[in-house]
């Protein structure tokens, strides 16, 4: 009898794993809670490090997937019951589906910048997040302040909601630094006359082409990187934002006004994923990401046989990382299914 894999989540990880499993001849049901598959990738404009359009990657993933698997949108699991060597997934709509393996590919949420109240997100109109900016860039409309004017000075705040004990997240979200540099360059491309600043504690340009992007940002685009963590913001009469910051490299307090402030928000775990994880009895780390069996050699296995994990639900990953991760997960699931008779 053909074995079925239920993949919870139709984002990059879910789509990739579904494609690979289809390649390997397995039967897949892909559940997606939103109206359409694609996850956060649908919201991004251009991806680092080469600034190619995210829509290209999304198109590629969809094309590869084709119609080879059953995709159900607007669906998510309410309950999942573990049996001897199979699972019953009870959808919120009531339907019960039997399967032999479950892949958690539920993805991530972005940190709610309102929790970092001192930065003024949701309070001051000219404070936005990197996701808001990405949306602005994707829509093709010009980047403006709340008053509709082109900003002459834009600031980027790194590590918002990450590496922050006060936000409850001690981990580094990995992608925000390179995103910040990328978006800084994009602002300069859109508004060549503007001044762009990045306020950082560290600049984590860890991967291939990242450091070179940083170099380019400094040399070609004259973006200013200031080492200091913004402690709080205030709003002027004209709604520009005043920043309080210490310029640690000169050890002096620095006051600066920007027209637009972009908060580089990091990853957080989805509460829904935590709920399902508890149902399934799989481990959750202190950082609330899903635990795998072995960080080096079994990173798609959970502690429970038949339940696998791929993508950002197990920690911060780039899109490229996620595609690789999901491919490996599909292979492991395929091998697992072979052991079931």
């Amino acid at each position, binding site marked *: 009898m053909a074995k079925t894999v239920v993949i919870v989540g139709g984002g990059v990880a879910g789509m990739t794993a579904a494609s690979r499993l289809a390649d390997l001849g397995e039967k897949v049901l892909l559940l997606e809670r939103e109206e359409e598959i694609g996850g956060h990738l649908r919201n991004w404009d251009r991806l680092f490090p080469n600034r190619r359009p995210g829509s290209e990657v999304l198109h590629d993933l969809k094309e590869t997937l084709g119609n080879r698997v059953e995709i159900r949108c607007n669906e998510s699991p309410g309950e999942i019951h573990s049996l001897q060597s199979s699972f019953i997934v009870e959808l919120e709509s009531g339907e019960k589906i039997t399967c032999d393996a479950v892949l958690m590919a539920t993805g991530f949420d972005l940190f709610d910048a309102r*929790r970092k*109240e*001192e930065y*003024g997100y*949701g*309070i*001051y109109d000219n404070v936005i997040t990197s996701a808001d900016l990405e949306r602005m860039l994707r829509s093709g409309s010009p980047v403006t302040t709340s008053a509709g004017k082109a900003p002459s000075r834009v600031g980027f705040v790194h590590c918002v909601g990450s590496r922050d*004990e*006060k*936000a*409850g997240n001690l981990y580094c979200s990995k992608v925000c630094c390179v995103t910040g540099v990328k978006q800084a360059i994009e602002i300069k491309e859109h508004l060549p006359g503007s001044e762009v600043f990045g306020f950082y504690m560290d600049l984590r340009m860890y991967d291939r082409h990242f450091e070179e992007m940083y170099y380019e940002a400094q040399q070609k685009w004259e973006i200013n990187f200031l080492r200091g963590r913004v402690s*709080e*913001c*205030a*709003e002027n009469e004209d709604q520009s934002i005043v920043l309080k910051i210490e310029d640690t490299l000169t050890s002096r307090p620095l006051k600066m006004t920007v027209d637009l402030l972009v908060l580089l928000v990091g990853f957080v775990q989805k509460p829904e994923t935590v709920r399902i994880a508890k149902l399934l009895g799989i481990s959750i780390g202190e950082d609330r990401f899903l635990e795998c069996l072995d960080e080096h050699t079994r990173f798609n296995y959970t502690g429970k046989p038949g339940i696998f994990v791929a993508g950002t639900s197990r920690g911060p990953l780039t899109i490229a990382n996620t595609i690789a991760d999901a491919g490996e997960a599909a292979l492991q699931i395929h091998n697992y299914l072979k052991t079931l008779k």
Partner: protein
Amino acid sequence: MISFNLFVLPFSLGLIYLLYMIIRWWYKWVKALPEEDRNLFKAGIFSKKFLSALKEIFSESLIHRKMFRRNALLGYMHMSFALGWFLLIVFGNMESRIYSTSHVNPPYYPIFLKFFIHDKTVLWFEINTVPGFFRFLMDFLLLFVLSGLILALIKRGKSRWFGLRRTTNSQLTDKVALTCLWLIFPVRLLAESFTDGYYGGGGGFVTQHLGNFLALIFQESSRHIAYALWWTYSLALGIFFVTVPFSRYWHIPTELLLIFFRHFGITSRKFSTSFTHVEIGACSRCGVCIDVCQLGSAARIHDIQAVYFIRSVRDEQVNRDIALRCLVCGRCQEACPVGIGADTIRLIERNTFSGTHDADFSYLPASFPRKASVIYFAGCMTHLTPAIIKAMKGILKQAGVDYLFLDEGGTVCCGRPVILSGKHDQARDLIEFNKERILRSEAHTLVTSCPICLRAFREEYNLPIRVLHHSHYILELIKAGRIPLQAVHRKVAYHDPCDLGRGSREYSAPRELLSKVATLVEVSQEGKDALCCGGSLGIYTVSPRKRDLITKDALEHLEASDPEVVATACPLCKKTFAKHAQVEVLDIAEIVYDAIPV
């Protein structure tokens, strides 16, 4: 002829020693009071206040009303010992008058009456006679005390029946004193019974029957056993008396003096005075403060609760850790049946043990603010919760208030955080700076968003103007019709900030204000029992993880009845809760501002 036997010596010597200690310390303490307080004391003794003090001594030291309110069994247990023993002494003395041959009786006479007097002329059931009535009464009171003793024994194993999860860890002196105390009454019962049994009369409804039974078993030996028991009884009493000044039972005489002090108007100061020493001596180590301390119940820190802290002060073994590891939330003070101000004493000790902090604020520039009717002082923390400032600005603008946002460009701290480090005098320059600015503006009202600042302004600044928390002020504005409201009444759980609730006794204004714009849901621990958010500036030595435990515990209580919003009235509470809350956390001002129609 005076009745005497060698065995009365332990009791008598012990009693003399105890009385000497009481008189010596009471004298010392009263003499060492600051002059102002000494005058209050002298004036108080000959006034009506003396009678009101006696009344409280009766209702608290004897009846233990506050204990009863906490838990009936606990109250009964304490009452039976205190009231029972007191009545035994009083009625015992009266009974001894019937039999004494001289006008002056030694103090041991009523205590050991049954050793000296064997009145077989009155039988145990002749309660209608005077001696018979006393006979009955004394036995009854003895049973009363023994019932308490049985409860105390049960409490060892089943403290939860008495409303206590954890009980005080005792030191050696307390264990010795306790053992003697617990021996006194059973031994008395046996001594009297054996004697009554041997002599075949003179006992009450308990002692006579028990005595008869014992006489049947022990026959002639009863006499010797009785004598051994009288010795034991005297020793138990004597050793107990001697340990009293060094054990928890010192509270018995000391709390009397504390009650007198309080009624005469003497209070604690910012530095240690006799009042502080008396408060410390009045702690009975009942342990009620242990369960209410969130460092214990949530953060699993069990050695710094008020009872242990006070004990360490009395033993002169305070260290930096025990002095600084306290939220200064006021829950222990609130729960204490004796009303000891543990928080105040903690701050006094911090002056010595928190280390030096020799502040120098001479860098503060002179400042001349413009004139305004009302001053809005946001507070340091509020600058990190700008939504509150935005809401306040909007509300004040809507109401057309002529206000000056005094710390808009940045706050000079109100000074209370320095005071919380125990360095009371170091805050002087901060207080002077802010006070000068406030007075120069000639405002008639000071409104602040931060309850910590509120307490500083009210307790330290001596301002001739009204000082209000913004919830109180906004309520006034609404009642005066200056703020139109169109609220969507969301379900809100209100959190009492420690410094606004217990600290400033303001429980109703925030609730009244919230009711106008939201639907308040019930919270299990609120008002004076409210939990601390954990953000506390009062605690110094605590890790972020331990703080998180306290915050999460408080949030659990707030989120239990499924509110849509947790409402706070303090920027520090808001920031602390926002880290962990599942629901939205908003200040009252924000909720009101949202309700103002555009």
